[in-house]
């Protein structure tokens, strides 16, 4: 089944397989920081233009065009500007940013220097989830090395540009990956998302204009600056330019992270890099882009390509590109229960539909698993999903809503009260 012509396109993962690529010496041998001397002597707007023309889209889940976001940053403001890199990586099924910070941290640092220069920031933060302390250490060592070799700090790389990078550690809260919650957390508060403004504007950190981008987005910038916008946009599709570090977990033989161009057929990706389903079972379903994206059936997977437009046309979303693969024996009610426990635990609690809806739907699914549900319970679940959609401060609740409705609409027979229990029923039902 596997297609041997399928290949990785290594833009961000170029140095991943080189031993010791996280050290400055090895990174330098392979071209790290080579973009700085030229780029920092040219106008800052050159970098923004290149990023805009490349079609680079944010890789933290939303897929917003990076260039457009950068242009929201003011150029003539007396207030300082800030760059904040989002390394919260808490979306279940997602484990790509950890590869970058542990295997090529200097690529991220180089991207942060270029981006900070482009938006006029002299202070940048990396917000990293608290559970990544092992990876954080590798990243901090790389930052320290960059400082002692003059790639960070005052007049870096013998230019007149100054930049400090500080790692800021989160402490276990999924919602802090949402950019405004992240900034609240960076300001020392609870991670509560902020109300979205009516018009597009930058983010604000202590009232100062701030750009928030994902680790992978920023790690792509050096390639674009070095090779030009066209070199990047030639990969992928017309609207989903370039590559993504797609990840695979669940019932797959070779789980892992593989960088491919957008537009790659999904099933081929799973079979070729993943080596197919464990125990040579049949594929049942895939959650395509981290746990917050609606689930796809095996038939849908067979026709899908990995790009924003195709997954949207299937009623799902590309999200972070973290695929969770489920085999034919998976009990979909249990799978949904597992996710609802997660969302109930992680709701920040500001909005009633979210705070109550996640817990309530979790309880109903538990009732279904215990075989105590009535025929009205599925409708009640769908009703709750409806209430959670479009009525909250952030998109957490609408995402949960989409997950619930996709599980029920696509695997309804498993939720029906007279359905017989499937195997795997090991879970403790609370």
């Amino acid at each position: 089944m596997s297609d041997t012509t399928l290949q990785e396109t290594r833009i961000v993962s170029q140095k991943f397989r080189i031993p010791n690529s996280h050290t400055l010496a090895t990174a330098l041998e392979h071209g790290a920081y080579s973009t700085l001397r030229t780029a920092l002597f040219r106008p800052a707007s050159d970098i923004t233009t290149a990023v805009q023309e490349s079609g680079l889209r944010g890789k933290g889940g939303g897929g917003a065009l990076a260039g457009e976001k950068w242009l929201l940053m003011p150029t003539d403001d007396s207030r300082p500007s800030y760059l904040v890199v989002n390394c919260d990586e808490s979306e279940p099924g997602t484990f790509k940013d950890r590869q970058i910070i542990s295997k090529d941290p200097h690529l991220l640092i180089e991207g942060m220097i270029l981006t900070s220069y482009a938006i006029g920031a002299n202070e940048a933060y990396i917000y990293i989830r608290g559970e990544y302390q092992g990876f954080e250490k590798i990243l901090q060592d790389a930052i320290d090395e960059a400082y002692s070799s003059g790639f960070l700090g005052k007049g870096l790389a013998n230019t007149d540009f100054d930049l400090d990078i500080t790692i800021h550690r989160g402490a276990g809260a999924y919602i802090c990956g949402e950019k405004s919650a992240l900034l609240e957390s960076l300001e020392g508060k609870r991670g509560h998302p902020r109300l979205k403004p009516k018009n597009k504007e930058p983010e604000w950190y202590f009232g100062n204009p701030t750009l928030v981008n994902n680790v992978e987005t920023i790690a792509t910038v050096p390639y674009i600056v070095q090779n030009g916008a066209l070199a990047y946009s030639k990969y992928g599709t017309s609207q989903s330019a370039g590559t993504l570090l797609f990840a695979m977990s669940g019932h797959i033989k070779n789980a892992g992270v593989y960088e491919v161009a957008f537009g790659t057929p999904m099933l081929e990706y799973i079979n070729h890099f993943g080596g197919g389903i464990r125990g040579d079972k049949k594929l049942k379903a895939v959650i395509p882009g981290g746990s917050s994206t609606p689930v796809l059936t095996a038939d849908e997977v067979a026709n899908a390509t990995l790009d924003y437009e195709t997954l949207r046309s299937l009623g799902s979303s590309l999200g972070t590109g973290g695929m969770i693969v489920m085999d034919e024996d998976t009990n979909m009610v249990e799978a949904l229960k597992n996710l609802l426990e997660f969302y109930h635990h992680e709701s920040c609690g500001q909005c009633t539909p979210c705070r109550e809806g996640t817990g309530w739907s979790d309880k109903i699914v538990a009732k279904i698993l215990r075989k105590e549900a009535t025929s009205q319970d599925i409708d009640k679940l769908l009703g709750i999903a409806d209430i959670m959609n479009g009525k909250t401060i952030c998109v957490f609740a609408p995402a949960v809503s989409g997950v619930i409705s996709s599980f029920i609409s696509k695997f309804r027979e498993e939720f029906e009260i007279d359905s017989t229990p499937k195997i795997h029923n090991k879970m403790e039902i609370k």
Partner: protein
Amino acid sequence: MSFSFDETNITKIEQLQKRYPSPKALTLPLLWMVQEQEGFISLEAMEEISKYTTRPAMEIYKTATFYTMFNLAPVGEHHIQLCKTLSCALCGKEDILAYIKKTLDIEVGQTTKDGKFTLTQVECLGSCGTAPMMQINQTNYESLTIERVEKILEELQ
């Protein structure tokens, strides 16, 4: 029980102060420092943080209680945090959990009598590709099997 930062941490705080536009931003870094110095965060420590961050102690408390990784009470020497989210569940986390509970004779949320192990279940730790997994203190143990868990627990005993 009074609290004060040790000298290494005071030097660190002085350096960090230069990196943030407002002392309020020191809240999370200082909560971490307390936890690393003492093992958990007491109300007295929050009073101390409140001085450095120019925020009322109640605000520090409000922040600290939002984040699951801040321990407001002491935990066992080895804090086992087993991931319970979907990819780990699909790859056999329930068997690992049952084994740990049986071996240590504790339930989730409990600490062994000798104070050596505390067992909690946590949400996705970003190691779904090497599921099932657990974190003990700061170390990740991935691609777990019962045999591996048996060895790990023995080594930590």
